[in-house]
């Protein structure tokens, strides 16, 4: 509580608010409150309770994330490589900075420095814009590589309907990555490696990081998977190409090391080409998942990989939605309320509340960033 007294001396707000209302309720004081303090405390309490609901709401997604990651850590470890760590990092900086300017804006509003408040809220908005721009690039990249949510991929201009694809590139797409280690004979029967010559291999070999390739084989070594008989190529290796974009160098040879103790089929190839074969198959399976035969296609690894992107898009999508809402409210306050000069030591509730909201958005990103981008 010493802090409270500190602040009083520190910032000449003193008992201004008090004096103000003793005689007459200020215009912003609702009829059922007795003092502005009571009103501000109520508003803050209400806001905190609202923030609690937000946390619980995101909590559901974090729960889905945890369960899937807990069950399929290797899928997550692999899939996250499709995300650009740098983008995530830049966005974190954007949000922290805008959070800082927002906190600063609350301070200036409390002190009644209208112009500074205006500028600082503008900077906060800019931070939000920066975040959105980066997100747009990220989403665009995913979209280009068919790493989108569920059926939305079908709307992609390059999307090849599985039925058509089945005629065009019918052969060649058996086998893929799976973490289910149990059935070796399946691995032997459907060892995907023999299909490793699809066009995707070129790209992959050229660009995949060694680590990535290793991951794939690491996964494949533990099981394999077969596609439905009509498993078409669909969109070729789309989910596979994405890490390619993120990756810097090709060092597919590394795959060998990781695959050394794996099944011989996979190990024998020991090249990125082999992995590309898997990737290809995955792409096929992926497309297949959205075809008419959805029902008969059993659970497959590609679907679990897909889980990551579904969760990624739902989490970041909901978060981005919150950023947008926050930006809307900030812009409204900044352009419609702040210039009127109504905020000062006696009344700054809206700025304070939107600040709390904005910080919460930041706070959620602080958890999203390591959980989505920095998986090991």
């Amino acid at each position: 509580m010493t802090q409270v007294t500190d602040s009083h001396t520190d910032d000449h707000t003193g008992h201004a608010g008090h004096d103000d209302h003793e005689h007459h309720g200020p215009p912003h004081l609702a009829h059922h409150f007795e003092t502005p303090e009571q009103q501000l405390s109520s508003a803050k309490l209400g806001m905190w309770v609202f923030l609690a609901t937000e946390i619980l709401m995101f909590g559901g997604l974090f729960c889905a994330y945890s369960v899937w990651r807990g069950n399929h850590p290797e899928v997550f470890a692999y899939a996250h490589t499709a995300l650009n760590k740098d983008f995530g990092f830049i966005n974190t900086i954007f949000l922290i900075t805008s959070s800082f300017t927002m906190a600063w804006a609350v301070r200036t509003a409390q002190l009644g420095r209208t112009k500074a408040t205006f500028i600082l809220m503008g900077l906060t908005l800019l931070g939000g814009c920066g975040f959105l721009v980066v997100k747009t690039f990220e989403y665009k990249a995913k979209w280009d590589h068919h790493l989108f949510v569920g059926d939305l991929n079908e709307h992609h201009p390059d999307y090849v309907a599985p039925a058509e694809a089945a005629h065009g590139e019918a052969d060649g797409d058996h086998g893929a990555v799976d973490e289910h280690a149990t059935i070796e004979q399946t691995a032997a029967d459907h060892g995907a490696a023999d299909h490793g010559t699809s066009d995707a291999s070129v790209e992959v070999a050229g660009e995949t990081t060694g680590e990535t390739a290793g991951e794939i084989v690491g996964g494949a070594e533990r099981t394999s998977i077969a596609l439905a008989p009509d498993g078409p190529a669909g969109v070729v290796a789309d989910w596979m190409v994405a890490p390619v974009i993120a990756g810097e160098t090709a060092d597919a040879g590394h795959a060998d090391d990781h695959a050394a103790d794996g099944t011989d089929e996979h190990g024998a190839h020991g090249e990125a080409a082999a992995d590309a074969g898997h990737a290809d198959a995955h792409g096929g399976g992926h497309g297949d998942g959205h075809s008419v035969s959805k029902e008969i296609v059993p659970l497959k690894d590609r679907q679990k990989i897909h889980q990551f992107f579904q969760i990624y898009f739902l989490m970041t999508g909901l978060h981005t939605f919150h950023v947008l809402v926050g930006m809307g409210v900030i812009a409204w306050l900044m352009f419609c309320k702040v210039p009127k000069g109504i905020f000062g030591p006696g009344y700054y509730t809206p700025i304070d509340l939107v600040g709390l909201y904005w910080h919460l958005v930041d706070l959620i990103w602080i958890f999203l960033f390591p959980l989505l981008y920095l998986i090991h």
Partner: protein
Amino acid sequence: MHVLSTLAQIGSGNLGMPPQASTYAADIDWTYAFTFWSCTVAFVIIMVAMIWFIWKYRHRPGYVQQGAPAHSTSLELFWSIIPTIIFLVIFYYGFTGFVDMATVPDYAYEIRVKSRKWSWDFVYPNGAVSSHLVVPKDTPVRLVLSSDDVIHSLFIPAFRTKKDVVPGRFNWTWFQAIANAPIRTEGVSADDKLLDKELGLDYFDLYCTEYCGTNHSMMRARVYVREPSVFQEWVTKQADILGTMPPAEGGKYLYTAKGCKQCHTVDGGAGNGPTWKDMFGYKQPLVGGGSVLADENYIRESILNPGAKLHEGYSNIMSSMQGNITEDEITAIIEYMKTLSDKGPKPMEAWPDAAETPAAAVE
């Protein structure tokens, strides 16, 4: 009659529970009875006290209210702790009973249960499949449950066993049957009479208890408990059930056994799926325009991949039979459909080659 039998059942020492036909049923009933009597005593105490107080302290002329304490910590602790102890005892019995139900003996006989909207397949280790569950008496039986579409739940009241059948995973349950059901005299349907020839009318009910769509309430099966030797005989015969009859008749058998009956009629009536009457050999209109001749290929495709060429006027609700049906069974169904249509070739009289009878299809 119902009233009497109902009252008799409630009045019996069983407290309204079904007959005890599995090893752990008695234990569960004991827990049930313990809880029941504890609750009854508590309920009577509460109600008697309440009514007595209301009577004794009701407002009336001449009644003068006396003061009474507004709280008594010791009294409140008393009625907090006593229920807690009783609850913990109930929990303990429930828990130990559950542990028995969750611990399957190693040597249990394993039956696969495959379910879909809206039928059950019970697959025995020798490959025999039936739509009703037949189990050997006094033998632990482990049911491994899987679903092709949505969540179902297998419930056998007489065994006190229940487990959800969740798609995308295996659930299991087990029981050891100790008694068979009495022979039914009431409520025997026409279907029952057909089945009676095969298995008899002494069966327990098996229900699906997780809501699964239109015909959820018809997703029932019968449970027969048989002496192990009789069971062995039955399961051996069942493995080659198709071989014992001509293809078309086998198809008719499968029509019921595979649950086709739930959606497809054979008399031209409407159903969730197109009727089989006059289907074979006719052009069938398709969703999205066009038509297709209902020949062997089309029917085979529609069984294995129902959504591929969807019949006009129906939605894609059928689950693929992929993995749940053999080629011979498909053939038998096609032959049966031929008998229902006035077009197309005559059905086969007999299986073409002895070596290709369904027995060969059994692994």
